[in-house]
């Protein structure tokens, strides 16, 4: 026991010793705002860089960082350079707790930007609220981010899954009327919200199945959908499971029309996972709300491509890279709008004021009473291994509002690629 005491004491004192180093690199002295000095803004994020959910998603944060580096090289925002701290949480909520605390308490970040994942990010909402940290553009389509009264500093980015479900279902209703429509979804808010949106438009689906990411075998589910005679299968799946579902269906001779959530539809990621079976992706319908990585004529893609070459080690330009840079663009817009005297409340007010136009096909919805991100999507189909937009962009809400066509054309990026103040 004496030994225990000595060890305990030694260890705790050692911990106390190391602690000072953690203290010194904190907030600047010039302003009271943590993470902001006259020359720097420190922002953090949590992302799955490892683990089963990392497929594709691990490319987002480096792309965001690359765009920030581009902005920094062009003088930064109001003279401040943006430092982006990327923490790996492996899509494990316990790790998210740890890394977000490290970002906020030790690294003293100004804001958390684009933290990814519903189960992971849900756990830190209260912590971020207590510490009054702006929690901007969460990378998930859960409706939890849109609770202005409960979480005044939290804003979503993705169209929520119900909105998406309604839009995908509208397509199915128009193009596949009378067919047997079935559903396979992730067993969480993603799957449930998506199904809710689908059923708002189509009524009850003929068969529904769910999967969990910890069990990489969807044979039984696809077998059940085949047995139910499904002609259209709507997937609310992450990329790995989209590929697995499509591959498994082919294996059992089941070839329905697949309609896939944006979250799990990046063709580059899917083709890589399917390998030789990639041709199965032809004709798969999905939706998106940002320019498509393969649309080289799009001025946004040209901008992102330039940034990608210069600052992202020329990583393969896929929709995850487009996503990451679009997040960065929106954040820079918010900082510009918040003005030179940057505070945490200031940036939240700026986002609430809204009015941002950018790469999205439909506008972001931010207002005092609405903290959800993009409000709609346009359908895509995969042709020759590439996704292509077709039809019109749609907008709707997560309640019973109508799904309406949105006609306004997207804006072009500013000449220097950086939003003006």
């Amino acid at each position, binding site marked *: 026991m004496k030994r225990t005491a000595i*060890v305990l004491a030694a260890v705790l004192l050692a911990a106390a010793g190391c602690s000072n180093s953690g203290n010194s690199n904190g907030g600047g002295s010039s302003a009271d705002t943590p993470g902001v000095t006259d020359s720097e803004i420190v922002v953090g994020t949590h992302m799955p860089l490892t683990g089963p959910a990392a497929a594709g998603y691990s490319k987002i944060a480096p792309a965001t960082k690359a765009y920030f580096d581009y902005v920094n090289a062009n003088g930064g925002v109001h003279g401040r350079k943006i430092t982006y701290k990327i923490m790996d949480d492996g899509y494990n909520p316990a790790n998210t707790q740890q890394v977000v605390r490290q970002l906020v308490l030790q690294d003293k970040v100004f804001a958390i930007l684009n933290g990814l994942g519903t189960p992971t990010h849900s756990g830190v909402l209260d912590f971020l609220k207590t510490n009054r940290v702006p929690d901007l553009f969460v990378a998930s389509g859960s409706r939890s981010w849109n609770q202005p009264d409960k979480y005044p500093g939290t804003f979503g980015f993705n169209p929520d899954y119900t909105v998406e479900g309604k839009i995908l279902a509208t397509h199915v209703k128009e193009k596949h009327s009378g067919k047997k429509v079935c559903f396979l979804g992730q067993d969480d*808010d993603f799957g449930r919200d998506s199904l809710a949106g689908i059923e708002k438009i189509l009524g009850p689906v003929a068969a529904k199945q769910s999967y969990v990411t910890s069990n990489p075998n969807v044979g039984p589910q696809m077998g059940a959908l085949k047995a139910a005679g499904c002609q259209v299968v709507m997937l609310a799946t992450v990329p790995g499971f989209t590929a697995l579902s499509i591959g498994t269906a082919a294996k059992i001779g089941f070839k329905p029309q697949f309609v896939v959530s944006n979250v799990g539809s990046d063709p580059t990621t899917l083709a890589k996972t399917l390998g030789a079976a990639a041709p199965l992706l032809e004709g798969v319908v999905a939706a998106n709300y940002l320019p498509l990585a393969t649309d080289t004529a799009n001025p946004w893609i040209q901008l992102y491509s330039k940034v990608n070459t210069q600052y992202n080690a020329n990583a393969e330009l896929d929709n995850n890279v487009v996503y990451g840079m679009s997040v960065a663009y929106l954040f820079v817009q918010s900082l510009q709008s918040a003005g030179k005297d940057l505070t945490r409340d200031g940036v939240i007010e700026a986002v609430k004021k809204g009015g941002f136009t950018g790469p999205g096909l439909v506008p972001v919805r931010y207002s005092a009473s609405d903290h959800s991100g993009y409000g709609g999507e346009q359908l895509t189909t995969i042709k020759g291994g590439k996704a292509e937009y077709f039809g019109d962009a749609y907008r709707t809400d997560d309640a019973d509002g109508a799904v309406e066509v949105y006609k306004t054309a997207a804006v072009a990026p500013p000449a220097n690629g950086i939003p003006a103040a």
Partner: protein
Amino acid sequence: MTVVRDRVATRIASPPMHRRLSPLLVVVIGAAIVVALTYTLPPFRTYQLATVGAYLCVTAGLTVLTGLNGQLSLGHGALMATGAYTLALWQNKFNLLAVGIVVAILVTTAVGAVIGLAAARLRGPYLAGLTLAVAVVVPSIASTFDGTFNSDQGLSVILNPPPDTMTVEQWQAWVCWGGALLTVLALALLTRGRFGRDMRAVRDDETAARLAGISIARTQVTAFVVSAACAGLAGALFAVIAQSVSPGAFPLTLSLFLVMAIVIGGLGRLTGALIGALLLVALPAVAHEIGEAAGSQRLEGNLALTFFGVVLVVVMLAAPGGLASLRIPLKKKGQR
């Protein structure tokens, strides 16, 4: 190995006449140090301190089970999940934390008794395999009964804000270390007494123990139940720290890490459990810093993993008594 462990065992459990500090005194000193630290450390370190406390609960229980009683459990991650989910469900219904922690311990104890009854009939790799299967069944249960456990997404935990006089992190550290020190005290007293002797007798020679009138099965089940209770407490404390529970927080790797922690620290020693708990928090943090310095994200989680593995193998081959059995413990600790 046996020789070393016997030496170890005698040292921990020799009767008080050998001039060792009373466990109560150690716990009181420990509490004083923790309280002092919570007022001097910056918030993030305090949070890490709280995490060490929560880990200490489970490693202390596990080291008694494995080190003193010879049963290897790879399923303690699942027992922690039991405690954590119980606390979450309780809090979201009644919001009475103190009672909730007790309920979490009781429920986990009950689950531990069931597993322990099966475990008492199994030895070595059979037991390891069974508990391994228990460890991987957590996500399956959470999604089969998703109405209660909400599948992969898990539950959030409702907590009242701490008293105004302290920060959240201080409060977390106090709660966790309160639990940890009580656990250590209880285990120290327990293993010094008759029960501790029974456990070691069963571990070393079942036949001899039986001849001496010790009920093998009862001793083993009791040991499992005790360590399950500790795991339940740890799980509940983790739920409090994280304010959420989900299957992802209790993966197979967690169970493996726990085994690693007690082996490195020295099986059967509460000191070893403390070292192990510290390593569980410190090593990933160090690995993160190395990874960041090297600018490689692939290094991050994997560096810690590899290091844990290497240390585990080397310790098992070279010093089965664990780090705590080495003669110069302070030097080892200086590296935190």
